[in-house]
């Protein structure tokens, strides 16, 4: 069975390495790269550093900086740096996983099944291909779990209980420090590691164990050092709990592994021992903690990792074996096996709450604060992520791709500020890469850079169609002029400079005007605007998405409506950008495709916009909508 476990681990690693690309998935990823770049360039010091969450993940910054220092050449562009970061994460994690799997000589069928269920759970699989402090911290946690195993299994001889070699105790302390310093919420898994590593089922004996003491010291030192090194302290996001979001994220993030988590925890408490109740609580602790700050399924990384870690402790392995001998335990394992495999192949496409179909590709995506997550068909989605810089999955790749087209020479001198709805770090990273100084506020800036998406998108975490960044941006548009610096895949990056003495020849930007005009139509939700014929909208994927065709020329729209055979009920909307108005007609992707086939010349001046999510998904109803994050 050891071979089977190795095969599962190697298969997973191969899959992840295949999917690694120069893709950006979330803003924290760019923050980590930005801070690391500045460490390499010595723009920021190791101490008194004010990088994002530096107090909670300073070791991740150091490791990434060291990796970039070794791997980066002077002419590397942002795409290549993103790929290097992603490679770093999977390399670290893969090595630790192989070490952990290889360190165990005996594997039972149940243990292999659990290993498969844990590794192929969506949250671990989709996190594996991106740089994140989670992945680096998890690598140390896996090694820590290996170091915590009992001495007699490692040496194959009987050694007296409680006797630990000094080196091993020191290594445990160092690994506990590294895991916590790489990402502080590793703290949530320390009770699990301690309780599952205990040689006796007694809390007192556990606390007397030198390895556990070393873990406590290492973890405490990591936290204190973080406080000392950081210039500012990140506060935890405001807690919230919305049951439908919780269920959707837990179902989509953990998937079938949730069944194993619950079965394992309940299996522990049924033994009638208080120590086992504590063990069960330690397994559930990350889920309980993140249940209240579940902004994205990615936050379920630790609950999934908790199950993986139990596989590398003696007590955990014994519990799994015992569970596998029981009827209910076997049932849970089999159901998990099947339910883990199935969503990798099939998914659900939903045009509305009551319009769902089973598909094997292009499942409906649902929003989170990071990016979109799929409703099944994970294999195909992983492939899409791998190819994300050519065919973007969500706004993260589009905006990142647009930033990647910026040429440093196009930026004016002085300090720059970045405005974005949730993706400020993408711009900040590029400023750091170009060696440009970043202004702390818009007022201090000589110029402002912003992505086009922010014009039509509310800021996350605000229960309104309007966000503070967008409001600031609108006020800037009134007292300055803008010009596009670059763009890709339907997103553009604009440069704003103050004053009204812009180029008199410059005409108002139709894209900006329409983006602002359609903001209310899409209710603050994300949408894409493209000139007619520039994008082949995929009618199957866009079923149930809100769409609209807009143009300055009323007659072109009337002609289009006649061709569609719909009443020519045009609606006029205004834009806060310029004084001219737009005429609009709602449209479906299917209708658009039928029109595009025989596109008339007058339609070339029209624009099309589609919501990036189905109409029934209003992000204001989702995670953290009412919170003050």
């Amino acid at each position, binding site marked *: 069975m050891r071979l089977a476990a190795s095969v599962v681990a190697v298969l997973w690693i191969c899959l992840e390495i295949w999917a690694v690309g120069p893709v950006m998935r979330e803003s924290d990823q760019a923050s980590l790269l930005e801070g690391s770049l500045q460490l390499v360039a010595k723009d920021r010091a190791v101490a008194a550093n004010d990088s994002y969450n530096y107090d909670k993940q300073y070791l991740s910054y150091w490791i990434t900086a060291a990796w970039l220092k070794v791997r980066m050449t002077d002419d590397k562009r942002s795409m290549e740096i993103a790929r290097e970061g992603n490679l770093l994460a999977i390399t670290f994690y893969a090595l630790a996983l192989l070490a952990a799997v290889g360190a165990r000589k005996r594997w039972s069928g149940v243990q292999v099944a659990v290993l498969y269920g844990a590794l192929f759970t969506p949250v671990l699989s989709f996190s594996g291909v991106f740089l994140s402090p989670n992945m680096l911290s998890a690598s140390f946690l896996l090694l820590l779990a290996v170091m915590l195993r009992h001495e007699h299994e490692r040496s194959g001889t009987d050694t007296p209980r409680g006797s630990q070699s000094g080196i091993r105790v020191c290594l445990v302390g160092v690994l506990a420090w590294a895991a916590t310093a790489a990402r502080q919420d590793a703290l949530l898994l320390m009770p699990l590691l301690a309780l599952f590593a205990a040689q006796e089922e007694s809390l007192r004996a556990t606390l007397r164990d030198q390895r556990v003491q070393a873990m406590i010291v290492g973890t405490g030192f990591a936290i204190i050092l973080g406080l000392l090194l950081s210039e500012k302290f990140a506060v935890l996001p405001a807690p919230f709990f919305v049951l439908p979001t919780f269920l959707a994220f837990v179902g989509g993030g953990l998937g079938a592994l949730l069944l194993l988590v619950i079965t394992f925890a309940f299996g522990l408490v049924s033994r009638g021992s208080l120590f086992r109740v504590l063990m069960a*609580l330690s397994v559930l602790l990350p889920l309980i903690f993140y249940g*209240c700050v579940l902004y994205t399924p990615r936050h379920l990384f630790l609950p999934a990792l908790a199950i993986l870690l139990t596989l590398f402790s003696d007590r955990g392995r014994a519990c799994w074996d015992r569970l596998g001998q029981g009827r209910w335990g076997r049932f849970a394992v089999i159901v998990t096996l099947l339910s883990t495999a199935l969503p990798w192949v099939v998914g659900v496409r939903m045009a509305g709450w009551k319009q769902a179909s089973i598909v094997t590709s292009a499942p409906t995506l649902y929003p989170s604060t990071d990016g979109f997550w799929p409703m099944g068909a994970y294999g195909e989605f992983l492939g899409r992520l791998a190819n994300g810089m050519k065919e973007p999955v969500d706004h993260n790749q589009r905006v990142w791709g647009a930033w990647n087209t910026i040429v440093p020479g196009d930026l004016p001198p002085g300090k720059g500020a970045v405005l974005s709805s949730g993706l400020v770090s993408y711009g900040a990273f590029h400023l750091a890469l170009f060696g440009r100084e970043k202004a702390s506020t818009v007022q201090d800036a000589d110029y402002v850079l912003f992505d086009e998406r922010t014009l039509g998108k509310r800021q996350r975490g605000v229960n309104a169609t309007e966000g503070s960044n967008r409001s600031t941006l609108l006020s800037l548009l009134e007292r300055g002029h803008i010009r596009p610096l670059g763009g890709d895949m339907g997103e553009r990056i604009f440069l704003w400079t103050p004053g009204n003495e812009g180029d008199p020849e410059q005409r108002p930007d139709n894209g900006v005007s329409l983006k602002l005009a359609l903001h209310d139509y899409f209710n603050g939700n994300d949408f894409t605007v493209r000139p007619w014929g520039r994008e082949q909208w995929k009618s199957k994927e866009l079923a149930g998405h809100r769409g609209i065709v807009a143009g300055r020329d009323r007659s072109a729209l009337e002609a289009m409506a006649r061709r569609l055979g719909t009443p020519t009920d045009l609606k006029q909307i205004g834009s806060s950008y310029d004084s001219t108005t737009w005429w609009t007609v709602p449209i479906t992707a299917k209708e658009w495709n039928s029109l595009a086939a025989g596109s008339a010349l007058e339609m070339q001046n029209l624009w099309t916009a589609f919501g990036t999510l189905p109409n029934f998904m209003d992000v204001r109803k989702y995670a953290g909508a009412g919170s003050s994050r």
Partner: protein
Amino acid sequence: MREQGQVVDHDKDGRDNSAPSAGILMSGTETALIQTTICRWLVALRVHHWTKSGFCLAALLFHGAVFDGSAWSAVLPAAVCFCLISSAVYLANDIFNRKEDRCHPNKRDRPIAAGYIAVRAAWVVVTVLVATALGLSFVFYGLGSVTLVLIAYYLLSWLYSFCLRGLPLVDVLVIGLGFVARVAAGAFALQSFDFTAHPTGWLVGCTYFLALLLGFGKRKGEWLLMESSEMALGSTRRALRGYTAELLNVLIGCSALCAGSIYVAYCLSRSDWVPFVLTAVPALLGLLSYLKLAWRSTSVETPEYLLLRSWSLLISLGGWLVLVGWFTAIR
């Protein structure tokens, strides 16, 4: 004193013919008779179970209105209503179960089973109690949520007595709903007096699993008692036939885990979670103390007396109340 296991002779109304006649006692000490009668009625009405109505006050605690007199005056009538209606339910239950109770080593001394209280008189009291409870609720809260919850609780109790009490698992699941009804009524009572309280999912979930924990603990106690007294399982409670000690241990452990997890999650979900999460410490210690008792002794058979028997439980509960009261008061 009646000897253990002695079968009592009852007439068709359930009156105990073997009991000393009232006339003889009255001629002796009239006061003693009155005292005895009152005591028997208090026992029959299960006054000590009125502590369960304390769950009505949970909303008061979590709404941060412990030191608000108007909040107390809003919730107390609801608690009183539940005291009255639960007494009516117990009394009616005792009337229906009097034959089964006579076989139970402890329950055979209940006033109705032992024949100290006439069945007809018990029915009259049941009617008065129900009418008073509903009347009181209507006067204070109108035909609103509190009265509806009270009626639902009463109907559920009848359903339990007639149909569901013999079904293993279902019996405890239904009892748990009774506790949820108390908590919900407390929150609705506050709401009807212009407070913004409402029964949140946390409150309902935590209460339900706590009630299940107490319910399954009670079954475990009964199960062990039956085993130790070498009586046939189900002779006193039919549902016991469907339980085993192992199953009850699993159910107790899982209920405790769910209650503890939901409470910790609730603490973390509050905006003032940094101090409030400290209340999870005594709460979890209390749960662990209860688990220790539930897995190892028969004392959990009577949860209403548990606090008097376990110092650790008493201290945990006290500590939890003080901390919750403090944090909600300073909020």
